[in-house]
């Protein structure tokens, strides 16, 4: 499935998702829409290392990275004022209060939905 979204053309989108298949699907969809993908990263350490060098335009993050909810990356993104959204299998109450205002999308999400989310993040709405 190929979805084109002009709003994403040329944008740099960080993807943090530990599941290879899902990460790969996201990458394919974002690239098809003209975006550049930073990642995808299977763990928070790699994503954090990349963030130290590149500032993406927006990010979509899986909250659960194998060894429990990790909030190091969202904190780094907040510091850099990069808009981001959570993709999560969790209900709201496992996400700390300081991220209460962060957009949250529960899995499974299809490619079209993720592109729409990324576009909204870039528009800041």
């Amino acid at each position, binding site marked *: 499935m190929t979805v084109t979204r002009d709003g994403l053309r040329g944008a740099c989108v960080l993807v943090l998702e530990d599941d290879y298949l899902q990460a790969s699907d996201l990458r394919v969809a974002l690239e098809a829409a003209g975006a550049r993908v930073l990642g995808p990263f299977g763990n928070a350490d790699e994503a954090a290392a990349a963030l130290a060098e590149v500032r993406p335009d927006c990010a979509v993050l899986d909250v659960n990275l194998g*060894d429990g909810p990790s909030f190091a990356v969202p904190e780094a993104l907040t510091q850099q004022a990069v808009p981001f959204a959570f993709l999560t*299998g969790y209900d709201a109450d496992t996400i700390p209060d300081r991220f209460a205002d962060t957009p949250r999308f*529960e899995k*499974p999400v299809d490619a079209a939905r993720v592109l729409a989310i990324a576009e909204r993040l870039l528009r800041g709405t």
Partner: protein
Amino acid sequence: MNAQVATIPPQPSGPAEGMAARIRNHDWAATPLGPRAYWPQSLKTVVDVMLASPSMISLVWGAEAIHLYNDEFTALLREHHTAALGRSAFEMFARSRGAFADDLAAGMAGKSARLLAQRYPVLRDGRLQDAWFDVDYAPVRDESGQVAGVLWTLRDVTAQVVAQAALRESEVRHRLLVGSWAQAVWEVDAQGVVVTDSPSWRAYTGQTLEERLGYGWVDAIHPDDRAYAERQWRESVAAEQLVDAEFRLRTADGGWRWTNVRAAPMRATDGTILRWVGMNIDIDARRRAEEALHASEARQQVLIEGVPQLVWRAVEEGRWTWASPQWTDFTAQSREDSRGHGWLGPVHPDDRAPVRATWHEAATRGAFDAEFRLLHPREGRYRWVQARATPVRDERGAIVEWLGTCTDVDDLRGLQDRQRLLLAELQHRVRNILAVIRSIVSRSDDGERSTEEYVQHLQGRISALARTQMLLTRNAGAGINLEEMIRDELLAQVAGEARYTLDGPDIELSPKAAEVLTLAIHELATNATKYGAFARADGRLAIAWRIEERDREPWLVLDWTESGVPIVDAVPRRQGFGSELIARRFPYELGGMGSFTLRPGGLASRIEFPLRAGDSILRTDAIDR
């Protein structure tokens, strides 16, 4: 004798003219006595004695009962005091004749007598009032020896009679009072030994006098109380102190009733004890109520000390006054140290201020309710407790104190946390699997296979996923045995055991490694069935694995080696799902490597990744904390 008459002193309380003068001046010639000069000497003498006496005296003379009296006597005659002189008593006191006629007759018959405490109205201090007299009468004889008159001497005993009446009244009052609350009243001798009867004791206990005498009364006491009662009695008597003891006493109907015995010594004016007076007060109802109360309190105590909660009492602002033994058992803090705000000591420092704030509002809210952490020295950590208290109010509704408990909710909170985590993990797992399935579905369609083939592929992959999930959920938190997993996958391809060999140590795979590896093995086995070792009669498969130490981490190295397959048959038309899984997914998800090569004899694949405990989609390590 006239001289004697003349010596009569004037009577201060008498009428203006004394009786001596009246008798002297009376016209006796007009009376049966005749002129005084002719009176017999006996009459004259008696009249002289009478007039000289300070006693109340009257003389009744002759068959006509002519009345003479002295000044003292006139009080009794009231308004008749002058008119009565020299007249017949029968005439003068015709109406009350019956009151004295018999005595007068007896006197005239030569008899004498004393009549005690006769009540007569008398005129005193200008008022008529009752007075009491002991009345003596005696015959007076004339010169011939015949009884000629009767002399009456009255002694005023009014004060004595009034005092006696008052005493009697006082005794009655006391007896009524004592009788209203004492069941038995008695006296014993100075040594405390029963020597006299007590009808009330007999009625109360059913003991006869004989049974009670001496120390027999002890037999009426309950056997369990006897030694105590007798000791109390003997000690008090020896020490000359008031007796006050409580014991059970047999009642007339054979039952036992609690009694309070009280006795006090009666002393003579010199202080020596004359005897002891005592009584038994029935306190059965009170004692039974007290016993019931004690039993109730004892039960309550057992309950308070038996419940798992830590129980305490407090006054305003959470100042503790008491703590149950459980508090000391839990916190190792003594009851004394917990008093006041001492109990805040074992409370977690961060929780002290909020708890005190809750206490501050408790009186207004009418309830105290808080959760805080309490140090549990035996476990060397804080445990969560839930504290609750309700106010005890007086009849006006004011709070007297608070009764409270602390309930250990640490395990409960742990379980709730675990449950929350498990639910989150379950949600994650289900949603993740759906996402994986979505991905597999789209990747299984390479646009070249028939629908039938597509469905077959898809089913095989979903079945592999299902097998992994089944194993993982069956052994929640545990790993999966590598060899068993491989056998399951090969079995799913209907490969006979003769076609393959498995060789390697026993290895438990973490859930995540199992999930990734299972799907890879599935793809390899599917490929072998379609194009490789299992597609040909002489094809063979050897799977061997070992553990290697790399950078201080154990790595699993697994070799999949097919043989007996001509190389031309094994060339895949394009790089498919299986090869992507092996080449890309192992590095991405497990930090490992995957490769495959086609060589003469068939496909050879190597999969390598570090074995990490707890590398899990289900965060079992996090759950166990």
